[in-house]
């Protein structure tokens, strides 16, 4: 069986990519390892999704459902095949595309596709990756896992909870656990500013008088079978714990919300170059990676804060995978100063159409102008009253005839 486009992952990015590729004339296979569509949105019962796309505050589940309905309707045309409970074990480059080895319900199957879109999302950074000393008792969860247990299975995690990291899922879990009757003792963040969105700090913590401690981290776990407590320490500007500041807090649950990393294990086997800033693939404005025929979108490309942008990148990747028939290796490199956390896409192929860029500031800034230069020529500028690392910005930049693209940030005097 030969497909035009194989989409891996049926979360918000993959759903949008599959629908869009099919609408642009491609024969599509959508591959999902779970038995349901929607990806992480299935467990995102909280609201605030779709504000940009629909002008409504939907729950994650409702947002996913809108795309699932469209997908099922488009499947009637016979050009989208859905493979649930199917895992992509291996991808090999062949002359006219790719060979995918699929594993499903104990059976192996080979399929061929001209192009692949990776919509594999991201994975949570684990407690092991933030080096906490002490024992390894039960009661330590990543925030997304805690969300899965509580929202999908209805399993309560504990009674006295400490949250490490102020990422959005951690903040949302602080509220969720409080509503379900747990006592959330505090959120501890090693950085000197919150990682989550302002509205989550306000509605998830301040509403319930949950304290947020900046420049603090968990340095030791206590307990043999179940967690009995944690040691908290203050950290310096380099996030190194300061000796003598240790404080013991009795608790039975630690929720760790310390960041997300784009999932790119398969692209690595295909030698897709990754960005050290985003940990996702390096792409051009068509969401195509530096390997011909491989596209990336959603959180597999870079971790987004709003699902609306995830769907948008899926739609774009799906469209371009369906309609593009040439692969240009010649591209202009996008560079940026250390004022930026990252800029996506990282490369620009010559085109007359303006290109959409997503960027994050590297730290909190007020009253700045973001400028884009082609050599000495300013091709774009925009004023910002506020830029915060947790809040991604989107801009459209004219790129017709550019020989260089350089992002800079200037403070307004």
């Amino acid at each position, binding site marked *: 069986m030969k497909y035009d486009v194989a989409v891996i992952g049926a979360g918000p990015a993959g759903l949008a990519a599959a629908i869009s590729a099919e609408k642009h004339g491609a024969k599509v296979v959508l591959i999902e390892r779970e*038995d*349901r569509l929607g990806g992480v949105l*299935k467990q995102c*019962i*909280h*609201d605030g999704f779709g504000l940009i796309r629909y002008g409504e*505050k*939907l*729950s994650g*589940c*409702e947002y996913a*459902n809108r795309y699932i309905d469209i997908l099922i309707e488009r499947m009637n045309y016979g050009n989208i095949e859905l493979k*649930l*409970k199917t895992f992509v074990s291996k991808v090999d480059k062949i002359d006219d595309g790719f060979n995918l080895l699929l594993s*499903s*319900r104990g059976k192996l199957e080979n399929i061929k596709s001209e192009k692949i879109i990776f919509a594999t999302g991201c994975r949570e950074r684990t407690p092991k990756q933030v080096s906490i000393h002490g024992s390894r008792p039960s009661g330590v969860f990543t925030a997304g896992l805690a969300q899965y247990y509580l*929202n*999908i*299975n*209805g399993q309560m995690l504990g009674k006295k909870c400490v949250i490490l990291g102020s990422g959005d899922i951690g903040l949302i879990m602080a509220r*969720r656990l409080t*509503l*379900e009757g747990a006592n959330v003792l505090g959120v501890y963040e090693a950085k000197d500013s919150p990682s989550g969105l*302002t*509205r989550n*700090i*306000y*509605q998830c913590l*301040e*509403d319930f008088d949950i304290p947020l401690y900046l420049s603090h981290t968990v340095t030791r776990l206590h307990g043999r079978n179940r967690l009995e407590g944690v040691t908290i320490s203050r950290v310096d500007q380099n996030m190194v714990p300061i000796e003598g500041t240790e404080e013991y807090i009795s608790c039975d649950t630690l929720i760790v919300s310390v960041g997300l990393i784009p999932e790119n294990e398969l692209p690595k086997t295909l030698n897709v170059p990754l960005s050290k800033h985003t940990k996702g693939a390096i792409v051009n404005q068509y969401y195509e990676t530096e390997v011909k025929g491989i596209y990336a979108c959603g959180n597999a490309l870079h971790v987004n804060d709003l699902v609306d942008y995830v769907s948008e990148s899926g739609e774009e990747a799906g469209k371009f995978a369906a309609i593009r028939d040439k692969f240009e290796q010649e591209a202009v490199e996008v560079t940026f100063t250390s004022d930026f956390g990252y800029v996506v896409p990282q490369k620009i192929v010559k085109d007359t159409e303006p290109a959409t860029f997503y960027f994050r500031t590297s730290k909190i800034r007020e009253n700045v102008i973001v400028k884009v230069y082609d050599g000495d020529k300013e091709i774009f500028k925009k004023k910002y*009253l*506020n830029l*915060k690392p947790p*809040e991604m910005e989107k801009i459209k930049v004219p790129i017709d005839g550019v020989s260089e693209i350089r992002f800079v940030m200037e403070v307004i005097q």
Partner: protein
Amino acid sequence: MINRTFTCIVCPNGCKLNVTASEDNAFIVTGNKCKKGIEFAENEILNPKRMLTTTVKTNFDLMPYLPVRTDNEIPKEKVFEVMSILRKTVIEKNIKVGDIIIENISNTGVNVIATMNTEEKRYG
């Protein structure tokens, strides 16, 4: 005499608002960059409201809990009361997204609706 500071969450600007109110209930809001900040601050003090999202138990093996939300904001002080009603609720028949689970919960004039279908196509 009220004197409170909080972060405006109407837009991403996140203005740090300071609200003072005198005895005759006239509000003085400072720190806002637009009019929406004043409205937000007044509502937060006089009648704070929140959306509530949670899950309710079902009789279905494939989906033991169904996600639900209020279809509008409810008074903040009723959040835990509504939670305790929903904790006792069990879904016994199939439900579609948007179906009302409980009408006019706690006399708020707000309904609790499902945010997922109980019946989902599954394979294998």
